[in-house]
Every structure is written in C-alpha cells, then in structure tokens.
C-alpha cells in the first residue's frame, strides 16, 4: 500500500519534469554571421587560452618572487643579526678591559639577546702567542668573563652566557707580528641555541 503510493508520486514527478523541459527549452545562442574561416576561430581560441595561462603563470611567478624576496629579506635580516651577535671584540696586550669602541657592538648584542630570550651564547677568550702559555688560559678566561659581565649588566641573564678560554691555542692569524697579535687578542661569540629565528630588537 505504502509502496504503491510512493511509486505513483515518483511517476508524477517525472511527468512534471518532462513538461517543464518542454515549456522552457534551453536558450539558443544568437545566430552569428558565419566565421570567415574555422582556422581563424581556432587560433583566437588558442590565443585566449594561452593568454589566460600566461596571466596565471605571471601571477604565480610574482607571488613566488614576492615570497622569495621576503624570505631573502628575512634571511638577510637573520644573517645581519647573527653577524652582530658573532662579531668579535679585541683587547690590548695582557689586558682584559673592554675597549670603549667595542661598547656599541656589545650594546647591540645585548639588545638582540634581550629581544630573543631563547638565544644562548658561548663567549670564548683568546690571547696572542706572547705571554706564558699557561697564564694565557687565565687571561683568555678573564677576557671572556669581562664581556659576559658587560652583557649581564645590560640585562642579559647570566645563565644564557657560557664562558670558556682558549688561551693562545687557536690563533686566527698565524703570523708573528703586531698585526697578527692584535687580531688574535679577542673574544669570539658562538651561538649555542635559539639562533635559528631571531627578531630584531625594537
């Protein structure tokens, strides 16, 4: 009983749909003058298609270039921050006092460290080949500790700065003259952690 009723409803719906189809036939395109040639028509269609492909490609390339530029800019920015962090400071013979001209650099380092709380550094103190080999271990340590004290005074947490000494064991310049010695009396700053993404200090 119920099944018969359902079937009848279905048939009626089909009939209605057929009637509607007849009453509203699909709209036909307005008749156009006959194309001069079928070849021209094909070329135009191909051109249009190509134009849209080109436009899409251009848009994609532009977007990629913008992304690339942004990435490069970000990388440049990161590199610049890392370069500032890694820049060395130098010392007078047998001295561990921070040069006044190195203070601006240390201030920049402190600002970057304060803007990036995950950043941790190892400060390595180095000496020139003069002076006692063994005493230079203590002197290199004093040089590294001097830079750490400066940064801690600028608000950097002491636990984020590791201090080590290399004495005269790792000369940058193997020469035996004042130029080489001046280069070798230095603190190096090595990123231990948190250096993959750095934000610039505000």
């Amino acid at each position, binding site marked *: 009983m119920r099944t018969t009723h359902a079937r009848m409803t279905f048939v009626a719906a089909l009939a209605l749909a057929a009637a509607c189809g007849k009453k509203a036939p699909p709209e036909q395109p307005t008749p156009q003058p006959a194309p001069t040639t079928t070849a021209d028509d094909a070329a135009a269609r191909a051109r249009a298609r190509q134009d849209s492909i080109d436009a899409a490609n251009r848009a994609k390339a532009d977007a990629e270039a913008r992304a690339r530029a942004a990435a490069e800019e970000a990388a440049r920015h990161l590199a610049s921050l890392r370069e500032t962090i890694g820049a060395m400071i130098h010392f007078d013979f*047998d001295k561990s006092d921070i040069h006044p001209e190195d203070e601006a650099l240390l201030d920049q380092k402190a600002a970057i460290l304060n803007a990036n709380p995950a950043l941790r550094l*190892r400060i*390595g103190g180095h000496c020139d080949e*003069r*002076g*006692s*080999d*063994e*005493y230079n*271990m*203590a*002197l290199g*340590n*004093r040089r590294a*500790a001097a830079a*750490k004290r400066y940064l801690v005074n600028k608000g950097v947490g002491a636990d984020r700065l590791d*201090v*080590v*000494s*290399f004495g005269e*064991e790792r000369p940058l310049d193997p020469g035996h003259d004042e130029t080489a010695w001046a280069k070798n009396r230095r603190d190096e700053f090595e990123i231990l952690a948190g250096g993959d993404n750095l934000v610039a200090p505000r």
Partner: protein
Amino acid sequence: MRCSAIVLGLLLLPLVARAQDTTRAIDRGVRVGITYTPGMRPSIMVLPAPALDSVRAIILRDLDYSDRFDVIGVPNTVASPARGGQQGATTALNYALYRTFGANYGVEIAPSGREIVVRLHDLNLGAMKQEAHAAIPDPGTPGFRMAVHQMSDQIVRWVTGTSGVAATQLLYISNKRVYRIDSDGENAVAITGETEEPLSPAWSPDGRRIAYTQFTAGKGPIVVLTLATGQRTIVPSTGKDLNITPVFAPDGRTLAFARVTEEGTDIYSADIADACCVQRLTVGRFADNLSPTYSPDGRRIAFVSTRAGLPQIYVMATDGTDQELFAPFDYGVTGSSNAPDWSPDGTSVVFHREVSRSPQLFILDVASGRVRQLTSTGRNEDATWAPDGRHLAFVSDRSGRRLLWVIDVETGRIRQLTTSAAARLPAWSRGSPGSMPGPR
C-alpha cells in the same frame, strides 16, 4: 782618530751585547782539556772499548752533558786499554801513559760474560777506584740506551758523590700530543693519541704516572695517565670547567692544579689516591692564581698570582695559609713573572719574567730572596729543573722556532734538546724510570 774610535766602538757594540748573554753556546762533542788546574772540573777520559763502541759513545756524551767534567779525547793511536803491570792485577792500566793526556780519571768498559763491567780508575793515584757489573740489553733493543745512561750516572756518582741525570726523561707538548724524550734528546715518542689536546704535562715523583690538562673546546679536566697500562683517571672535581697546570706533590698522592672559572682562576689540591678531599687553596675574587709548584719537603707551594696586577711569584703553605710575595719585584716596573718550578734541592725557584716584552729565565734564591737573571738571548720560558738541581730544560726561540734547550746554571753552558717540531711546556722527570735495568 776620534772618529775612527767611535766607528770602532759602534762596530764592537753588537759583540759586547752578545757577550752579555750568560747562555753562551759551547760546541757539541768532546773538548780536549789541556792542563789540570786546581779548582777546575775534574777531567775524565773513556778508554777505547773496541767491542762496545756504541756504549762508549753514549757514555762519552752523557759525561759531557753532565757538565761536571772536562771530557778528554783519546788519540786514535791508543786503540784499546793499555795495561800496565804495576799492581800485577788485570785491572791495572798503564796509568803513566794516560796521565800524559791530562786526565784525572779513566773509565774502562769491557764485556764480562753476558754483562758489561765498568771500572773507574784514578789516574793520578794509579789505582782502580770503583767497579760495577751491569746487564745491558743489545744495542737497538728497548732499554739499551737507558741502561747505558744509568752506567753514566753511576760514574758521575763515583766521582762527584752526586748522581748524574743521563737516565732521566722529559715530557713536552708538540703537535697537540705529549711526547717523552730521553735527557740526551734521543727516543722521542708520543704518549698521547691524536684525538686529545693535552697541555701542561707533569710527572709523578716515581715517574710511573703523568698528569695533564685534557683541553677540549675551552674546557678540560686533569687526567692522570698510568704509563705502563695506559689507564686514565680524571682528578676529582675537574670534570667541568677548565683545569690547568697540574703538579704532583712529593708524596705522590696529592695533586695541585688551577681551576679557571668566571670568578677567576684559583689553586686547588686533591687526593688522587683516594679520589677525595678537594681543597681550595686560594680565593682570587677575579684575580688569577695558577702554576703551583711544591717545595721538595712538600710543605709549601710557590705559585703565580695577579693579585697585584701583573702576574708575579708568591708562596703559601700547602693548606693555603701564609700567602706572601716570593720573588720581589718593582711595582709598575718589573714585567710579568710566570711558570715557577721549585728546585729538587729546595734552594731555588726558577721562573720566567718579561724583560722588554721578552720572557727571560730568572732564579730566585729561596734563602736570601734575591733574584738573578739567567738568559738574555731570544725568548726563554717555561723552565723545568732536572733532578740534579743544576740543569734546566726550557723553551727558547733563539734558533728561530720554539724548541727545547738545556742549560747548566753553574757553567752557563747550553745545548739544544729537540730539533724538529715546535716543542713547549717541558717537564723533567724526578728520577730515572723505575722499570729500567741498571748497574748492580
């Protein structure tokens, strides 16, 4: 006339400056003494020993390096020991013949069964003074040279009452390895591998162990290495931070060293026999205290401190009390002083001090507190006493590169110990290697 005198003076200046160096080089090899003069060193000759040429050559050089004799060459015409019949004994020599060469003593070496017999003859008295037998390994085998060196030291003891230092060895650093070398510059061998970066090697009193800093990326523990077994142990409390300048106390169980931390560098001692009892001896508060060296009685430690600015030499009791200045200096004038080493006889401490920005060796006389300069040519640093208390090995660049040299502080005679790769941080053993065979 006046002008030429000035020119002459200028020409002589470099010669005069050179002559001031107390460390004049003296030719290697055998020198021929002319006549015996009272107050001079005794002269000695080693008689030809046809079957024992290599033994004789080593003894000759050892006696020369002892700096206690004028070693007299034997003319080629005297091929083998000339016997004389005065005493009717086989040990008697033709003393009259040897006296003509000007020697006070004659050393005779000869095969004796499987051993070698060595005899000391007093040529003036015309009598044999001493005789000893020794088992000497075959030339070229391990232990041969050291066994001969021990014979040489025996000869020195017979004549002077004090042992020579031929049968001793030194440690030093070259190409990031600890090397050990015989006192005559032979048998240099690396005793640490290529993976370590050792610094400041030091001998135990018995010569069976060494201690050194195992430097790693700006930090480093103190390692004690037992030479015979290769066993390494880390000195208690030195597992982190940077720990430098280890030195054994004369008791062989206590080790002193300096620990480098952010607060400065300070001296500690530890009991390495029981791996305990780490004791802090200095409290620097941002000053540096390092390079401890024990007095031979084990009661005091000389060390370097920057408490007055530049590093200078201080002394304290081994518990860290009674700290005071040891080597006097003029504040603001005297240069940095470093690397003290207390002599085995306790009478002096050698160290190096900057003079015109060049380190030179100085000796502090412990009793008087007076200091004298020992060297003036080139850079001379990191001296270490031989067990005889009169020879020092040190680092010098006088030949161009940093190499090891030996100076006899009594005569000023100097010789080169190493010739090849750059060498530094030498440490002279306190005695002869315990395992070596020697004269009975």
